[in-house]
């Protein structure tokens, strides 16, 4: 509870930035309406951004665990394929990957694209990309669990799956919370890359507004949205981390 004032300071500072820009560019109080208008138009795109964010988290985090298992497979072929997949996902621009996912059905299968597919393509592209990152994070978390814990579990008679679920997974979660938080924060901002396949997210709307009005302000308002969003993410993840740390 003591943290409330700190939060207030952050939010205040965040609000101050566009306000300062506003005053610099000579916008008067009567332009509050204009500001609300921008916010309103952006909020349409905000739902699209949120949808993309939510679905990516929902799919990429479990998928990442599967990729992580495959990466740790004792079958060399599966391990190699997964390694290749991860290196492609991490080694090429996400924007390019989105384009590939979006246009692949057309170029490979000659399927004409419905406009709904845009949304699916964005979600698929993001989920595939983030799964690779999460997989590597999970892997480091799993490998950070001391060998002795596996051995203690084995001698106590835990099965392999019991050992993973009861002993390894909770410790993995604990170890990986900070890097996972980083990834989530990056994702919030990365959703703006979906413009590459003309997915209409908040940032795309902001850019269009900005171009229409020859005014940079809509972009700053969008920036403010991202900032507040990430502020909430950090806050929630901080709480979770604190809870996970209670046994340290």
């Amino acid at each position: 509870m003591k943290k409330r004032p700190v939060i207030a300071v952050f939010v205040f500072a965040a609000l101050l930035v566009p306000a300062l820009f506003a005053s610099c560019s000579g916008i008067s109080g009567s332009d509050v309406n204009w500001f609300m208008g921008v916010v309103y138009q952006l909020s349409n795109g905000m739902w699209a951004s949120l949808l993309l964010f939510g679905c990516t988290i929902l799919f990429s985090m479990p998928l990442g665990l599967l990729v992580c298992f495959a990466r740790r497979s004792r079958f060399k072929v599966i391990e190699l394929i997964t390694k290749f997949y991860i290196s492609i996902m991490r080694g090429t621009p996400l924007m390019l990957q989105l384009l590939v996912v979006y246009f692949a059905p057309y170029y490979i299968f000659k399927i004409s694209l419905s406009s709904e597919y845009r949304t699916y393509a964005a979600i698929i592209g993001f989920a595939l990309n983030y799964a690779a990152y999460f997989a590597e994070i999970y892997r480091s978390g799993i490998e950070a669990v001391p060998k002795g814990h596996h051995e203690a579990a084995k001698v106590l008679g835990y099965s392999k799956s019991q050992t993973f679920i009861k002993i390894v997974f909770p410790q993995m979660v604990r170890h990986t919370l900070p890097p996972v938080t980083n990834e989530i924060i990056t994702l919030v901002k990365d959703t703006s890359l979906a413009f590459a396949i003309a997915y209409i997210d908040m940032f795309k709307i902001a850019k269009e507004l900005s171009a229409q009005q020859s005014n940079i302000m809509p972009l700053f308002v969008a920036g403010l949205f991202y900032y507040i969003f990430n502020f909430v993410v950090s806050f929630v993840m901080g709480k979770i981390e604190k809870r996970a740390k209670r046994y340290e």
Partner: protein
Amino acid sequence: MNLLEIKNIKKSFGDLEVLKDISISVAEGEVVSILGPSGSGKSTLLRCATMLETMDSGSLIYCGENAATDVNGKSVYAPKKDLKRIQNYFGLVFQNFNLFPHYTVLKNITDAPVHVQKRDKEEVEKEAMALLKQMGIEDKFDYYPSQLSGGQQQRVAIARALAMNPKLLFFDEPTSALDPELTSEILRVLRDLAAEKMTMVIVTHEIEFARNVSDRVIFMDEGYIVEQGAPEKVIDNPDNDRVRAFLAKIK
């Protein structure tokens, strides 16, 4: 009947032959100490006996049940479901405790009896509290391992092993990670267990303790047992020069 029967174990890691030909039997109620220089294969022997490591050849028998049989110089392990049953006959206490950090003391002790042995939770918890009391740390039942001293953690680890009601407990240098004061705490616990006729196989560097508590001392060197017998014999009056040199160095 012997609780544990190990016959002609051999174990190599790559080209390194660690256990060369080791046979040990342990009777019910017996306390056996294993001494020997670093690298002589003591831990490897315990790890083979507790099936953390598979042996290359030799057989492993608990309470008359074959965990592994020697077939033409190769160890062949019993089917999984048999091993699962045999697993219940023994417990192992590690040098570095290996408690589960995200479980409280009580959960560390009760989780396996409840979820592996499928015993009644309430009854297991009652037993666990009694074990903690016996260890003198019943007030710490809701602590996390990180909130305990090394000696307390090791006592929890011993309680965790005992809660499975094993017939035999292995200890791999249970006091090596502890300072002298905490060491004597743990040795006292082991002494009490010996007095209760708990069957134990203890790898240790505590010569005095081995002399006072064990019924038998085994001295290992370079993958062989070079001497074994009553502690007065092996520790005070060894035949083997290696044993004599080692003991002289430790004292």
